[in-house]
């Protein structure tokens, strides 16, 4: 096909990798800049603040550490299930792929539900992003991260359902798509690995 995207399976002669993988890494580089800018803002705002949190006490008293720890474990587990979903494709087992991908999506939704309860509790006490910089930073950082989780859920759900059609015609191409989705997903996990201690523990 003349209009087919080239190098979806065969490595590109210049980069040595398929185009999709190169593309997703470039995208992740831009994501590093996005979250990096927010992290540096957090550092600047926090070091200039008279108290942190502004209302007094500690971050670990204001934010729910057990829930945050649970969510960290949930995301880490979703990362291994994502790897296993890709590994199942590499080993030619499409039903195992469905199992592990469904697990990944399920765990992502658990993460979002926990975040919903955390946010609801804050809103119930009238602690909105506008309350002060502590809450502003907390909601923007975790909110943006949450939006990224939703994006990942959408892509992973596509791969689990409609997208699996590609497995029948070009299994290697499909496997590469799963790998690329995995790279994005691990990055989302990576961001949380830094977010959790920065916001909840320190």
């Amino acid at each position, binding site marked *: 096909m003349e209009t087919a995207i080239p190098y979806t399976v065969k*490595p590109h002669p210049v*980069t*040595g*990798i398929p185009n999709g993988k*190169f593309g997703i*890494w*470039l995208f992740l*580089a831009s994501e*590093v*800049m996005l979250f*990096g*800018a927010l*992290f*540096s*803002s957090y*550092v*600047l705002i926090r070091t200039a603040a008279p108290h942190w949190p502004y209302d007094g006490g500690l971050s*670990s008293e204001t934010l729910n*550490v057990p829930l945050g*720890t649970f969510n*960290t*474990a949930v995301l*880490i*587990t979703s*990362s*291994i299930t*994502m*790897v*296993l979903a890709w*590994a199942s494709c*590499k*080993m*030619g*087992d499409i039903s195992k792929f469905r199992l592990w991908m469904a697990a990944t999506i399920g765990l992502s939704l658990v993460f979002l539900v926990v975040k919903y309860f955390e946010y609801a509790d804050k809103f119930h006490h009238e602690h909105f992003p506008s309350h002060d910089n502590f809450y502003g930073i907390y909601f923007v950082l975790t909110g943006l991260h949450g939006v990224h989780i939703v994006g990942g859920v959408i892509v992973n759900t596509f791969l689990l359902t409609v997208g699996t059609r590609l497995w029948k015609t070009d299994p290697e191409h499909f496997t590469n798509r799963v790998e690329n989705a*995995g*790279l994005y997903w*691990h*990055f989302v*996990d*990576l961001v949380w*690995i*830094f977010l*959790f*201690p*920065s916001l909840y*523990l*320190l």
Partner: protein
Amino acid sequence: MDATAADTHHESPEEFKKHLGKYYAVFVALLGLTAITVGVSYLKLNRPLAITVALIIASVKAGLVAGVFMHLISEKKVIYAVLLLTALFFLLVLLLPSFTTLEPHHSLPGT
């Protein structure tokens, strides 16, 4: 072609199974390091030390996710180049705000 130890492109399903062990090992390590991070936070270390320890543990976890789950440990040079450039610019973005708090060389009249 750069064939490395973890180049799984041309492996059979049976050969690929060998890699699963290291993925499970990293998973267990990540959970353990999470427990350590939370445990250390209860020690109520002084601020600079608490930040240093937390960031070191987070970096180790990040290294495991990036190196093993994201296959970075055996990636092609072009990806390393992209990430090196990203790291440099990220460092710049992180340090940029500090330039706004430096003293000016010359004060304007009346200020």
